[in-house]
C-alpha cells in the first residue's frame, strides 16, 4: 500500500464513517427516547435511495403505496379509537396527516412528472414520501407496546425490519440502483482526487449534526425529547406527551436515514437489502458509545468507516467479519467497567 492508496482508502472510510455517524446518532436518539433498538433504521437508507432512483427513472416508487397503506391503517385505527372515546374533534387532524397528506403526495408523484423535475425537487419529493413512514411505523408497531420491555421492543424491531426488507424487495425488485451525483465537480487535494459527492456527504452530515445539536440544545421540542430520554414519567408529569416524543424521534430518525441513503446513492449501488448492513454498522458505532453518548458514537462511526475501508483492501472477503468483531473489545471493556446487578424492567 502506498501513500496514495492509503489516502484514497482514508477518504472512503471517512465518507462512509460520516454516514454511519448520522445513523448512529439516529439510533442513540431513538433508544434514549423510546428504549427501542431500532433495527429498521437501515431500511430507511435503502428506501430513501431507491425512491429517488425510481422517481428519476420515471417509475412510481413502491414507498408511495406503503405511505398510502399505512395512512389508511392509522386513519382507521385512530378514527375508531376517537369515535369510541367520543373525541370527534381529533378526527380532522388524523385524517389530514394520514389520508390527505399521502393523497397529495400521490398526486405529486402521478401528475408533477418527477422525472423531469430538477434534482433538488426530486430529493424533496423522495423525503416527503419516505420520512412520514417513520412516525407511522412508530404509531402502528411501537406505540401500543410503549411500556413493554426492551427485549420485546427489540423483537418488534426485528419483525418490522423483516417486513420492510420484504416490502423493499416487492417494491424495488432485486436489482440495485445508483443515482447521478449531486454535482460533477471534483478537485485534487494532496495527490488524490476528491469528488464533489464526497464533499456533499461530509458537508451535509456535518451540517445535520450541528442542526441536531441546535435542535436539542435550543428548541423546546428538542428539550422535551431530552427530558423524555432522561425520565419518561417525569417528562409526562411536566406535560410532555411521550407519544409525541416517540413520533418526533422516529420522524428525525427517518429523515436522517432517508437523507443518508440519498447522499450515498451516487457513490455506491443500493439494493433493497443494503440498508441492513449499513444500519448495523451504525449500530456498532452506537454501541461503542454505549447507546447513550452522541459524541462517542460519532467518533466510533468514523472508526468503523476507516476500519471497513482498510480491511476491504487487506482482506476484502472478511471485511464484514472484521467490522463486526470490533464490538468485541468494546463489549469486553463495558463488561469490565459495569459491576452492579441490574434489575431488568
Amino acid at each position: 500500500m502506498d501513500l496514495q492508496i492509503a489516502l484514497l482508502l482514508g477518504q472512503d472510510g471517512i465518507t462512509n464513517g460520516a454516514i454511519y455517524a448520522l445513523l448512529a446518532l439516529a439510533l442513540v436518539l431513538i433508544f434514549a427516547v423510546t428504549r427501542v433498538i431500532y433495527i429498521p433504521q437501515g431500511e430507511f437508507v435503502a428506501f430513501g435511495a431507491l425512491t429517488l432512483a425510481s422517481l428519476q427513472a420515471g417509475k412510481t416508487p413502491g414507498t408511495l403505496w406503503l405511505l398510502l397503506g399505512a395512512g389508511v391503517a392509522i386513519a382507521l385505527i385512530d378514527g375508531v379509537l376517537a369515535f369510541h372515546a367520543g373525541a370527534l374533534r381529533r378526527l380532522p387532524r388524523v385524517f389530514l396527516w394520514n389520508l390527505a397528506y399521502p393523497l397529495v403526495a400521490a398526486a405529486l408523484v402521478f401528475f408533477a412528472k418527477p422525472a423531469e423535475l430538477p434534482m433538488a425537487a426530486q430529493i424533496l419529493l423522495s423525503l416527503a414520501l419516505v420520512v412520514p413512514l417513520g412516525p407511522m411505523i412508530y404509531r402502528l408497531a411501537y406505540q401500543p407496546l410503549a411500556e413493554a420491555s426492551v427485549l420485546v421492543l427489540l423483537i418488534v424491531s426485528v419483525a418490522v425490519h423483516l417486513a420492510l426488507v420484504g416490502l423493499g424487495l416487492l417494491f424495488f425488485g432485486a436489482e440495485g440502483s445508483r443515482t447521478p451525483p449531486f454535482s460533477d465537480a471534483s478537485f485534487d487535494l494532496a495527490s488524490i482526487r476528491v469528488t464533489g459527492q464526497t464533499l456533499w456527504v461530509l458537508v451535509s452530515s456535518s451540517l445535520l449534526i450541528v442542526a441536531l445539536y441546535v435542535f436539542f440544545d435550543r428548541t423546546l421540542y428538542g428539550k422535551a425529547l431530552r427530558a423524555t430520554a432522561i425520565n419518561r414519567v417525569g417528562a409526562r408529569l411536566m406535560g410532555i406527551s411521550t407519544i409525541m416524543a416517540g413520533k418526533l424521534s422516529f420522524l428525525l430518525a427517518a429523515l436522517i436515514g432517508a437523507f443518508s441513503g440519498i447522499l450515498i446513492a451516487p457513490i455506491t449501488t443500493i439494493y433493497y437489502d443494503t440498508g441492513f448492513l449499513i444500519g448495523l454498522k451504525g449500530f456498532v458505532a452506537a454501541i461503542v458509545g454505549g447507546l447513550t453518548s452522541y459524541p462517542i458514537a460519532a467518533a466510533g462511526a468514523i472508526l468503523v468507516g476507516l476500519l471497513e475501508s482498510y480491511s476491504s483492501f487487506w482482506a476484502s472477503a472478511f471485511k464484514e467479519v472484521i467490522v463486526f468483531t470490533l464490538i468485541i473489545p468494546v463489549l469486553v471493556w463495558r463488561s469490565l467497567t459495569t459491576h452492579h446487578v441490574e434489575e431488568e424492567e
Partner: protein
Amino acid sequence: MRRRTVILAGFLLLLALVPRLLPEFYVTLLNYIGLYAIVALGLVLLTGVGGLTSFGQAAFVGLGAYTTAYLTTATELPVWLAPFGASPWLALLAGLVLTAVVALILGALTLRLSGHYLPLGTIAWGISLYFLFGNIEQLGGHTGITGIPPLSVFGLEVKFGREFYYLIWVLLMLTVWLTQNLLDSREGRAIRALKGGTLMAEAMGVDTARSKTVIFLIAALFACLSGWLYAHLQRFVNPTPFGLHIGIEYLFMAVLGGAAHVWGALIGAGVITVLKQWLQDLLPKLFGSSGNFEMIVFGLLMVLMLQRARDGLWPILARLDSRDGGNDRARAAPHAEPMPKKTLPPSGTRLLEVKDVTKKFGGLVASNKMNLWLQSGEVLALIGPNGAGKSTMFNCISGVDSATSGEIRFLDERIETLRSREIARRGMSRTFQHVRLLPTMSVLENVAIGAHLRGRKGVISALLHLERAEEQRLMAEAARQIERVGLKEHMFDQAGSLALGQQRILEIARALAADPCLLLLDEPAAGLRYLEKQALAELLRKLRMEGMGILLVEHDVEFVMGLADRVVVMEFGEKIAEGLPEQVRQDPAVLEAYLGGVA
C-alpha cells in the same frame, strides 16, 4: 394430572405412527419441524424463561452442521482432529465442544451487561459466522460441502426420511424431557427467577450470571445438535440456512408458540414451517415475481402477536384443557428428612457491627456515618420517619447496594465489599420493603428459592433428574417454613394471588428457608391485620429464643415497642437516638423527629 398423561401418551403414539400413515412429503415436513423445534426449544429456555435472547441461534446450528460436514468429509485432517472424523457421532462431540467454547466466550462478553447487549452481540456473531462460512475455502465457500456420509445408529444406516424421522423426534423428545427436568429443579428455579427477579435471586445466594450462562450454553448446544442432524439428513451444507434471517425465524418460532412453554417450541416450529411452505407457494404467484416475500407476512404477524397475545399460542391451547388445576389445595405437602441446620452462634455473640457507614447517591447523603451493632438472640429495631435512610442501611448491610465508605462486619468478617450472594452464603438473609416475588410461581417454589444455597446438586443432575432426593428435602424444608409462618393452606397457590400482607410473610418464610443466623426484615408487619401481627410477633420471639439475631425496620410503633430489645432511631441519614424501647420513647430528639417538637 392423569388427563395430561393420557394426552401426552396419545401424542407420542401418534408421533410413532406418523411415518406409517402419511405420505413422504409430510414426513419430510415433520422432519424439518422437528429440527427447528430443537432450536426453538433452546430459545424457549433462553428467551421465554430466562428473559434473554439470541438472534444468532442459526449460527450455532451452522457450527454443528459445518463441524460434522468438515470432519466427516475432509481427506487430510490434522492429526489431532483425525479421530473425530472417524464417525459422525464423534464429530457431534467435537461440534458440541466447539459450540460450548464459542457460547461461553460470547456469554462472558455480553451476559454481564444489560439485557440488550446479548441480542446485539448475537446479531454481530450471526453475521460474522455466515460470512466466514462463505469465505473459507476449506469449507467450500458459498457452494458448501457435499458428500456427507449418512448416520448409523447401532450399526444400522439411517438413510431415508422415514428412518431419520424417528431419530429426529426421539432426540427432540429427549431435549424436551431434559428441559422440563431442568426447569423443575433447584437450578431451574434460579433460572426462572432471572426474568424480573435477579436482585432478589442474588440476595438469596443465586449466581445469576452463572444461571444466564447455563441457559445460553444449553440453547447453543441444542442448536448445534439440530445442525448436526440437518447436515446428515441433507448430506450437504452451504451457508444459506445459517444466516441471520433464519436466526430471526427461530426466535419467531419460540415467540409465536409461546416462549415460556416447552411445548410452545413445537407449536411455533410447526406453524412457522407450514406457513412458510404455503406462503412460498402462494405469494410469488400473487405478486408475480419470485422472492422471500413470506418475511413480510412473518414480520407483520410477529408485531401483531406481540401486541395482542404476547404469551404466544400455547397458553391459548392450554386453556382449552381447563379441567385440571383448582384442586391443588388437596395436594400433600412434600415430606422428607430435614436438611442439616447450621448451629447458631451462642447467645450474646456479636453478629453485626456497622461502623461509620456513609452512602451517597450523587449529592444526596442517604446515610451519614451510621453506627449500629447487633448480637445473637436479640431483636434490634431500626425506626425513623420516611426517607430517614433505613432501607438504604438495609441494602448496604445485605450487599444489595454498596456503602460509599465505612466498615461493616458480619461474624467478625468485613463484608462491605462483598456481593449480596456472598453475604447470603455467610448466613444473613433478608426480606424486601417492596415485595420481590415471582408472582406466577407457587408459594412453595418461591420459598424454595430461599433454600437455594442449601442444595449442592448442579445443572447436570438437574437435567437428568438425578437430584430428586435432595430436591425432595429442599421442598420439604420450604414446606416446613411455610407452615411455620402460617401460610400452609396457600402452599400451592400462585404467589401473586396472595394479599400483600401474606406476600410479606412469604418473604419471611423464604428468608428462613436459607437457615440464617441473622434475619433482616424490612417492614414485615405492613398490611397485616391485628391477629396476623400478633402471630408474627410470636414467631419472631420464638426465633429470638432459638438464638437468631433479627434486625427490623418497622413503622408500627406498638409492634416495635412490644418486641424489640433495643431501638435505633434514624432521621435524615443519621442516628438520633439509641437505647431501650422505654428510653427511646421519652427521648426529646425522637419526639421532635416524629411529632415536630410539640411535646
